[in-house]
């Protein structure tokens, strides 16, 4: 490889990697990213939808894998999209989660699934153990054979 070819490769790759500077920070991409994570100002209040397992001792949180992805944020996207579509879509998600719970021994105490939208303050929830309020979006039974 000649120096000219090496210089062209270098300029193209460095230029491409720095090209997100010409975009708005919110206009993220892959693999050429503006890397906007952790930069946005946001309140500690969070409204989010998630599934809960119903047990004899009260509700318990499930796991991202049970929702459909081992990645937390991808699992969150699955629930949020279903809730946004509502009706049949959220009911189907509830059934899918219930079916996975039914075959997972560590959730043997879960008898039903509730998909809820919760309003929480993150600091109150995590530090002061003070959850906010939850609205039910769908509910279904866990059927075991």
């Amino acid at each position, binding site marked *: 490889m000649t120096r000219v070819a090496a210089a062209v490769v*270098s300029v193209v790759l460095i230029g491409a990697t720095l090209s997100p500077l010409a975009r708005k920070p919110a206009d993220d991409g892959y693999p050429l990213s503006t*890397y906007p994570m952790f930069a946005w100002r946001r309140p500690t209040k969070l409204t*989010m939808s998630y599934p809960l397992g119903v047990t004899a001792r009260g509700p318990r949180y499930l796991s991202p894998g049970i929702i459909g992805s081992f990645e937390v*944020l991808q699992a*969150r996207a699955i629930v949020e999209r279903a809730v946004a579509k509502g009706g049949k879509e959220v009911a189907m998600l509830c059934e899918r989660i219930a079916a996975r719970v039914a075959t997972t021994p560590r959730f043997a105490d879960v008898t039903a699934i509730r998909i809820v939208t919760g309003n929480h303050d993150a600091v109150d929830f*995590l530090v002061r153990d003070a959850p906010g309020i939850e609205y039910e979006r769908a509910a279904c039974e866990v059927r075991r054979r």
Partner: protein
Amino acid sequence: MTMTPRSPVAVLARWWFAPAPAERLAALRMLIGGYAFVYLWIRFGELLAVTRFPATQWRAVGVTRLLDGPLAPTVMLVIVVVTMVLLAAFVLGLQYRIVAPLAALGLLWVTSYRNSWGMVFHTENLMVLHVIALACMPAADRWALGRPPGEAAAGYGWCIKLLVVLMVATYVLAGIAKLRIAGLGWIDGELLRNQIAIDNLRKALLGGSIAPLATQFLEHPSAFTVFCVLTLALELGAPITLLGGWPARLWVLAVWGFHVGVIFLMNIWFLYPLVGAAFWPVLRVERPFASLFGRVARWRDPRRAA
């Protein structure tokens, strides 16, 4: 127009093309290619799991915008397997000029596909950029299977520097994004504290593991000002690695510590820097390989040892 030896372009060219051992680039090919292979191996189940998501979840990013919708699971299975085979050949240096670009394209496709289901992860970008860059380099002039050693006319120093610059660019971009979005106010700590609080709350509600030190630090918001200053200093100070030597190694150590801190506060694992892969181009990574291959050669031919 002639270029005098002291002109800025000539000085830059001398620095950019300063010699470096071909073995270092070959070692980076094996290490970074090997990392990408293991990454796909570990993520194999997850890469296939996304193919079973409902099509309504599909949000194409990057090269997958070429598609009208998700691929059939079997097609994606074949692409992942073929990419892994290509990456294995990439590591070995087999038919490098043909195999390396295909392996890079496969990796770009597979990771873009994984990111096309509602969440763009930022943990894979540099790995993909490094593999693409290596595919454009004479990285199989040493330690390649079925190929005698070669010599590149432009040498190998520019290749190592390019890999370092790509790493530096990703950190600088992350620092600039904070300033573009939030301004200098980002360092007051409140924004980062809220990000960490929200991130951990999301994990808790979805049944994921929250970070071990998150709750302790959320009670002491002033600590986040220190974290913010350090974060920006490290991100915007990344170009110091271009000096090489101890400043580069010190920066690498500090940024590695920063990523460990991210685990303790957010339970987010940036594996590529955490295992050191992002920083291998800064180090003399050829030494352990040279030692290993030397031992193997002496074992196979004891006369050399004598």
